[in-house]
């Protein structure tokens, strides 16, 4: 496992909910990241975020980590959930809220 991969694994496994995104929750730098944050805020869960624009290694590494070519990427309890399209579909179907409840994720 490369250094970057183990750094990513540490972040993913060290936070119940973590979003790899462009920018920060207050200042998202991309519409897709902005949409992902809006969904998490709406669900009212506590989450960590990683700004991939501040770290080129993670920006590249996260794409191979889950074999997923785009950012944002959401992880819950160490599992890759999806990008912003999947988050939106799951949110609208009530599945994302259910996943957070089932995972006993802390409310913000």
């Amino acid at each position, binding site marked *: 496992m490369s250094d970057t991969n183990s750094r990513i694994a540490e972040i993913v496994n060290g936070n119940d909910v973590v979003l790899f995104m462009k920018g920060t929750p207050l200042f998202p730098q991309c*519409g*897709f990241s902005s949409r992902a944050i809006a969904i998490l805020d709406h669900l009212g869960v506590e989450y960590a975020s990683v700004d991939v624009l501040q770290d080129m290694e993670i920006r590249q590494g996260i*794409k191979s980590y889950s*074999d*997923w*070519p*785009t*950012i944002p990427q959401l992880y819950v309890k160490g599992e*890759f*959930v*999806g*990008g912003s*399209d*999947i988050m939106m*579909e*799951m949110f609208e179907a009530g599945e994302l809220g259910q996943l957070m409840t089932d995972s006993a994720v802390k409310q913000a």
Partner: protein
Amino acid sequence: MGMAAADIEAMIKAALPDAEVTITDLAGDGDHYAAHVVSPTFAGKSRVAQHQLIYKALGGRMGGELHALQLTTAVPN
């Protein structure tokens, strides 16, 4: 920069010949698309796996040449 909607559709259909593909050019700029793909191949696969099939069909362009593709997938009724 960007790709033509017809190219995106052709690449998806080359990988998934049974797919019905609907592409919408969201901004009219040839760079922001939405794709809705319906295929029996998706049956029994997770959403992540369904999207990964499409990303593979696009051969690494996703996240690069093709920045903004909103993707939704479904199994035919």
